[in-house]
């Protein structure tokens, strides 16, 4: 696994914050860099992948550990 360049902690935040935080953080990355978004909002399960596909950023991996959803995104 490549190194994660940025971690977005959206735990405890509700819709639409995880997506807004991801979008803001993505602006600070350069193409090809990786970021991980951690969220506890169940809506993020579908919202982060939907945001990624809408913006053309690649969802590399998603996982869940003890109620925390993690998404690894590669910046377009």
């Amino acid at each position, binding site marked *: 696994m490549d190194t994660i360049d940025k971690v977005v902690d959206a735990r*405890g935040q509700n819709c*639409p914050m995880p997506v807004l935080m991801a979008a803001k953080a993505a602006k600070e990355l350069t193409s090809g860099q990786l970021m991980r978004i951690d969220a506890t909002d169940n809506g993020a399960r579908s919202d982060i992948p939907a945001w990624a596909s809408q913006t053309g950023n690649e969802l590399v991996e998603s996982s869940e550990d003890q109620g925390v959803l993690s998404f690894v995104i590669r910046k377009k």
Partner: protein
Amino acid sequence: MQEKDPEMMTIIAFSGDLDKLWPTMILSSTAAANGMDVAVFYTFWGLFPLVRDDVRFTGNDAMTKMLAGMNAPGMKKAHLSKLKMAGMGRWMMRKVAKKNNLMAPEDLFAMGQEMGVQMWPCQMTMDLLGIEADQMVDGLGPPIGAATALARMSKSSISLFI
């Protein structure tokens, strides 16, 4: 016929009700986060939430001042569309939202602005209700009219009236 742009969204914010400001702010900020070109046109009751919270009264004659008195301007003073209960409903709703980490509409509005959502006040409503440009929050687009809103809606793949 002109093709609609899938990356363009326009919302007509007609209601100034708290429970309708939420979907307006959530959808507009999220669409901007999705990379869409978003504009929100605030008209009729929808214009009152754009008045700065420190402005107690708007209006330029007895009637418009009375209207503002019955419908306090400012986003923080917006009431629910139902269960008003003399302000109790609004207070409870904001409490519940905070408890569930749902951001307040005014904070989502600021996020939307930061993400590039264009906020357009309706010129006709400003004249009708006697609301001056300097009584409204910063960062708004120029006041516009129905024709400008319609021209944009005809190109937007998503147009909503909230």
